[in-house]
């Protein structure tokens, strides 16, 4: 019968109409009282007491809460995480970058035992505007100093701001992605929830201490 297939198809459409929704209402979602009190982690009465405006909005289903899509710990995002005390200034990241957007300038450090073992970094610029987030610089880093970030909300007004300077890298939030860093992945680490302050936790290779370097380069010779 002509039209039977159409009816069969409309049945599928109807099933999807009343089924669970898949859409994430990023960044803001309008919810009612129950979900709002769950979001602020309070019961409805104390929600009224502490945030009366939100409470009244929630009664008519207009309370605004934040909603994010699922993000997985290996997500390669913006704002590179750089741990300065792990970095030796070897510039492997700059060499292995397919686009050549990392610029490093170093000079021999003050406390270097022998030239070539310790460098102080003057310039560490990453031109995010041309970065394609392939993560090869992170893969190349021999001392686990550079990590991919996990952010994705980094709209910038000026083109000059797209170049991340060494000060921005120092002051950035340390929420490294676990891309190519299995040592962070083994724990139950989620970049959105926690920050890693201690540079000791992020590395599988240890940066040699001054005593070890003295032993290796001065005493043995």
């Amino acid at each position: 019968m002509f039209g039977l297939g159409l009816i069969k198809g409309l049945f599928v459409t109807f099933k999807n109409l009343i089924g669970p929704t898949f859409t994430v209402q990023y960044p803001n979602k309008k919810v009612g009282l129950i979900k709002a009190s769950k979001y602020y982690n309070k019961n409805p009465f104390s929600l009224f007491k502490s945030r009366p405006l939100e409470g009244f909005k929630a009664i008519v289903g207009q309370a605004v809460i934040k909603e994010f899509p699922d993000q997985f710990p290996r997500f390669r995002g913006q704002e590179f995480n750089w741990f300065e005390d792990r970095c030796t200034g070897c510039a492997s990241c700059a060499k292995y970058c397919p686009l050549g957007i990392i610029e490093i300038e170093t000079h021999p450090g003050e406390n270097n035992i022998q030239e070539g073992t310790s460098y102080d970094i003057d310039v560490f610029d990453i031109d995010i505007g041309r970065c394609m987030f392939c993560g090869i610089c992170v893969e190349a880093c021999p001392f686990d100093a550079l990590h991919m970030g996990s952010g994705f909300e980094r709209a910038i007004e000026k083109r000059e701001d797209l170049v991340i300077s060494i000060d921005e890298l120092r002051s950035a939030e340390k929420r490294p992605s676990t891309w190519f860093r299995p040592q962070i992945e083994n724990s139950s680490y989620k970049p959105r929830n926690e920050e890693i302050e201690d540079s000791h936790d992020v590395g599988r290779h240890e940066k040699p201490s001054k005593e070890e370097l003295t032993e290796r380069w001065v005493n043995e010779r």
Partner: protein
Amino acid sequence: MSLRTEPVTMNVGPIHPSTHGVFRMRVTFDGEEIVDVEPVIGYLHRGSEKLAEERTYTQVVTLTDRMDYVASMTNNQSYILSVEKLAGITPSPRGVWLRMIAAELQRIASHAVANGFLINDLGAWHTPLLYMLREREKILEMFEMLCGARITNSYLRPGGVFMDAPDQFWPALNRFLDEMPNRIDDIERLLTTNEIVLIRTQNVGVLKKEECLNASITGPVLRASGVDWDLREKNPYDYYDQIEFSRPLGEIGDNHDRFLIRIFEMRESLKILRQCIENIEPGPVRPKEVPFLVRPPKGDSYVPIESPKGELGFYLVSDGGISPFRCHVRAPSLINLTLLKEMVLGDKIADLFVTFGSIDVNMGEVDR
């Protein structure tokens, strides 16, 4: 008495919602009938083959993602197989199984996009397309678990993959394998017996067996015309020789056959995925001795694979250095596009876009 009409030449594209990217056709119409079609390509040319010559073998992996951006995993696979043959690297078994899983997931995602946009071109506004994209979204989330990116993956490395799958990947994959057959059933219930789809696609854009073989068409377009040619079976790469699957064949070679072949292949990919999960064994995903800078000896290599769109292969020439001396891509989209004129001649204007959508062309791969 018949009315005599003047043929009119028109430009379709390069920026047109139904040309799947920046593709331009110079079409001559006689009334509603198509008299001549001349494809004009090159609007998305980025010179990937030339760029590959001045990058190391690992860095080129990132360029292959951007060729066919709907199926980056298979692009990576083809390139990596070519590098491994060139450098004589034996990959780790677990890495090979993981990249087969990734490639089959990518095949499902790519076919979902192809079928969804085919129905979108038919005029069913976004509803069936969004059902397909919803399934693709689950696959992209699994890719994000695997490698941190959804489309530009760069997951594979010479010798296997860069990192083992995380713990949360396997439950997600099993859930996907359980759900997906029902979803494909839904899609079939919605579309395969729909009278409007049948009228618009059956006996439109017919491609005969001989025409296909003459123009070296590959992939689902070739199988829809009734030629049993699948490189996974005829020239097995990776561990496809240990896996059993059937290859559906079409009869007429019209748009509806191509649509059905893609849906059947999605089911076959699910079967392959189940076998991969059974066979996968613990171990390293990449041999330790493979260096970051691969230095293959002098020579050349070409390993064709069955990508979602057809035979995809990277021809690499090495002069013993750290970067390829020459890189050439055999892109299935470009070669499948050559028969567009033969397919649409004599059809109506509206069928032009349907036929074009049924070839499943990706402009990033055509122009590279």
